[in-house]
């Protein structure tokens, strides 16, 4: 039943936005943390969203059409967090060019036209880690530098607002679908 599918899809959307809010929370909480070396410094985490349609197609569409299913590299690296920017992630999995409509399969060919949100993983930002000269800091390296996390607070705040708005939109979809479903069940009474 299509209304049920709509509720499912809105659920995946809410899941995705919740993951986004979670990463925003951990980024903001760690915004002011410092570390003794650039490698140890906290790096901003961002979830990657992809339409589950790609998955249904049996892999990520590369340049020149769909490819057979492949394991994302984060599965090989032993953890869901991979140190690369969303842009390089996109280059790796979706090819350099944005996927245009012609590459996508007609959803009506499948039994259900809905496209749930799929979360292939969380990536860490590869933005510069800012060195701060603090010779008396207990964690300072031999040159007297500590390394602040590369979290951009403004970016995170806008991300948070966007995520909460999208979450609300999905809640609306869910409520509407539920109301319509209940009215359909009451048909003829």
């Amino acid at each position: 039943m299509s209304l049920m599918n709509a509720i499912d899809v809105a659920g995946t959307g809410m899941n995705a936005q919740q993951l986004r809010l979670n990463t925003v929370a951990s980024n903001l909480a760690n915004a002011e943390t410092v570390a003794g070396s650039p490698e140890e410094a906290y790096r901003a985490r961002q979830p990657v969203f992809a339409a589950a349609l790609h998955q249904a197609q049996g892999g990520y569409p590369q340049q020149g059409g769909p490819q057979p299913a492949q394991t994302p590299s984060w599965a090989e690296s032993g953890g869901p967090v991979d140190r690369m920017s969303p842009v390089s992630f996109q280059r790796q999995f979706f090819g350099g060019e944005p996927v245009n409509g012609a590459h996508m399969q007609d959803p009506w060919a499948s039994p259900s036209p809905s496209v749930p949100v799929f979360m292939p993983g969380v990536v860490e930002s590869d933005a510069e880690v800012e060195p701060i000269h603090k010779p008396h800091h207990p964690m300072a390296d031999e040159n007297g530098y500590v390394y602040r996390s590369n979290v951009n607070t403004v970016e995170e705040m806008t991300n948070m607002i966007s995520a909460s708005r999208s979450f609300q939109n999905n809640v609306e979809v869910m409520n509407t679908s539920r109301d319509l479903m209940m009215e359909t069940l009451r048909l003829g009474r």
Partner: protein
Amino acid sequence: MRIGLDQAFSTHEQALNLRGERHELLASNIANADTPNYKARDMDFRTAMREATQPPQQPLQATNPQHLQPASHVSAGDPKSLYRQPHGASLDGNTVEMHVEQAKFAENAVNYQATLEFLNGRISKLSGALRRE
């Protein structure tokens, strides 16, 4: 006397089905509002409805197995989903525009409810007739 119960509901039933499918499609658009490269989809309800209500096309008479048949046509009630033309392009290749989707979604929900109302009216009329009211 023949009571065409299925005929009494036919158009509204198909309309309800199509409205439900469109609801699902628009829900997908809203859920994928932040998915890079997602292309918003919608259906042309008028065309879909016309196709759904048309009588199914009969296959051509073939007296020889080598006679050509037309390419498999769209079966009745099988709407084509189309790509939405965005008003402004976004950098990540996503074509979902939330205000457009919200408007279409609300419109579709109201139309779904209207179809339900029509169906309810039909049902109460029929049951009234059966009860000699």
